[in-house]
């Protein structure tokens, strides 16, 4: 019945094949890395050059500023120490609102998940609330909550709250029912069930939304500062923008973007340490 027993191969050929494949793949990876990196640098340089030298050909310099001016302005702001005050104020407002928004969003989500009827009742109201342009609320917030940090914190919190709420509810709903059922049969109930299954199960969705919403919190705080403020990045931006100091406007925007990306990176780092089990997910 057996025709053939093919055993024994040349170790040499095998080693050669492996080495060649590894070499080819390493070379391809290196080529791609090089391409990507040089591409990023080239594109960046090209954009800056275009802005510096190309834009003035089309629009007046003072309306678009230029990278060199922005850099100079940024350096100035850093050197005279003015920037730190603005950053501190805005980060404080956005941070406080962010934390409040997350806490309230999580708590509300747990209530809605625990009592599904409430979720159904609240659904249309939340949808309507979600679709209100927050910029329309900003002036009223100033009226209701004053000129201090409170309206900015609340605006930031509001921007965060709904998104965290929606994502947490979706995250909890997304927990495989089998996981919950098995845990319940094993004896998990109430707070234990929440602690051992519901919270960790929803964590990836929640953390992702938390990471994404920091930029929203910043926008909330900045919106508030647009309407009334004595300090803060939003104040800096809007003030210079009213004076058409475009370089300062861009300097402020650069700072905001950098802050958002920094906080993002920090949360991502914390996330990969705190939730190692979803490290494998490409988009988690």
């Amino acid at each position, binding site marked *: 019945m057996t025709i053939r027993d093919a055993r024994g191969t040349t170790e040499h050929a095998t080693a050669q094949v492996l080495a060649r494949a590894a070499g080819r793949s390493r070379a391809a990876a290196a080529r791609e890395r090089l391409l990507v990196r040089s591409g990023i640098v080239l594109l960046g340089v090209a954009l800056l050059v275009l802005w510096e030298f190309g834009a003035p050909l089309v629009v007046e310099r003072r*309306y678009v500023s230029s990278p060199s001016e922005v850099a100079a302005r940024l350096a100035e702001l850093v050197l005279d120490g003015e920037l730190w005050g603005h950053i501190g104020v805005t980060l404080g407002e956005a941070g406080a609102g962010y934390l409040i928004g997350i806490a309230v969003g999580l708590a509300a989500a747990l209530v809605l998940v625990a009592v599904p009827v409430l979720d159904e009742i609240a659904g249309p109201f939340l949808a309507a609330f979600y679709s209100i342009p927050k910029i329309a609320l900003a*002036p009223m917030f*100033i*009226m*209701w909550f*004053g*000129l*201090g940090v409170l309206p900015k914190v609340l605006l930031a919190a509001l921007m965060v709250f709904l998104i965290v709420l929606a994502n947490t509810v979706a995250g909890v709903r997304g927990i495989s029912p089998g996981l919950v059922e098995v845990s319940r049969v094993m004896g998990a109930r109430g707070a234990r069930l929440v602690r051992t299954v519901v919270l960790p199960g929803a964590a990836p969705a929640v953390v992702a939304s938390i990471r994404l919403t920091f930029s929203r919190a910043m926008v909330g705080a900045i919106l508030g500062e*647009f*309407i*009334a*403020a*004595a300090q803060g990045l939003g*104040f800096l931006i*809007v*003030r*210079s923008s*009213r*004076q*058409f*100091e475009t370089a300062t406007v861009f300097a402020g925007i650069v700072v905001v973007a950098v802050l958002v990306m920094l906080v993002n990176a920090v949360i991502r780092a914390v996330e990969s340490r705190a939730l190692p089990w979803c490290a494998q997910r490409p988009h988690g």
Partner: protein
Amino acid sequence: AEPAQEAKRITIASAPNVFLSALYVAKDDGLFAKEGLTVEIVEVESGNDSIAALASGQAQYADVGFEDLAELSRAGDDSVVMAHDILNRVTLTLVMRKEVAERKNVTAASPLRDRLGALRGLKIGITSPGSPTDTYMRYYLGSVGLDPERDVELVPLGGGSALLAALEKGQIDAYHLSPPTPYVAAEKGFGVVLIDGPKGEVPELDRFDYTAWATSRQWAGENAGTAAAFSRVLAQATVKVKQQPDAVAAQIMDDLGSSDQATVLRTVKAMSSALSDRGCFDPAVVQRTLDVMLRLKILEEKADAAEGRLWTNEYNGC
């Protein structure tokens, strides 16, 4: 209340403006500190926000017009009162794009009616709906028989620099605002000043309480000493503004967020004639202001001009 227990912190809601020079000077020269006051200026987007800030008790002072107060009062809210006069005439300065003015064949020397009549069919910039730039423009237009809704287009653009830039780029044909930006347009050569506000060219709008410091009635009542000190300091600083325009111009550059000292100086000089000396309200002028406002339809119904209603001299030591 005992003066010692009175609040010493004052929050002011305002947008940067040359006619507030006294405030900047007082702050910069430490005049407030000498009285034991701490003053914080919160920049607001528009006059509406200042009124809201006052009414909600978040700010103690804001620079507003009588029409704002009258409207608020009409809405059933009497919590705000004028406490210190700032300007005795409307300083709004009308500037038009040069080629438009040439096309319309008007100059600063043309009769007032012609200058206003030239606005027909133009795109006119205002800061925001309901602001003085809006309401007084509507008066100008009405006074020469133009319909603000049909004969022109009013475009809210937010603030002075936006108006200036929009004028330069030809996105609007004219706008009016307190100096300096209208002067800048003229200096740069693309604008023609048709009505120089600080000079009081419009008779109806001269001897007219255009802007004053309003405060919360209740707060001022409870902190009469502080309120009086605030007025005192402002009056003192106003003297410096009028007597040493050069020094003041250099001093307030930062507060205005401006870097053009020559224009600021020119503006300070121009404005000083319109500034109230001691912040005192003249009952006759208030009466006239309210009457004119009613006639110009800036007010919708008659307002009570009696002291204690919309205004008070209680803290001005007049």
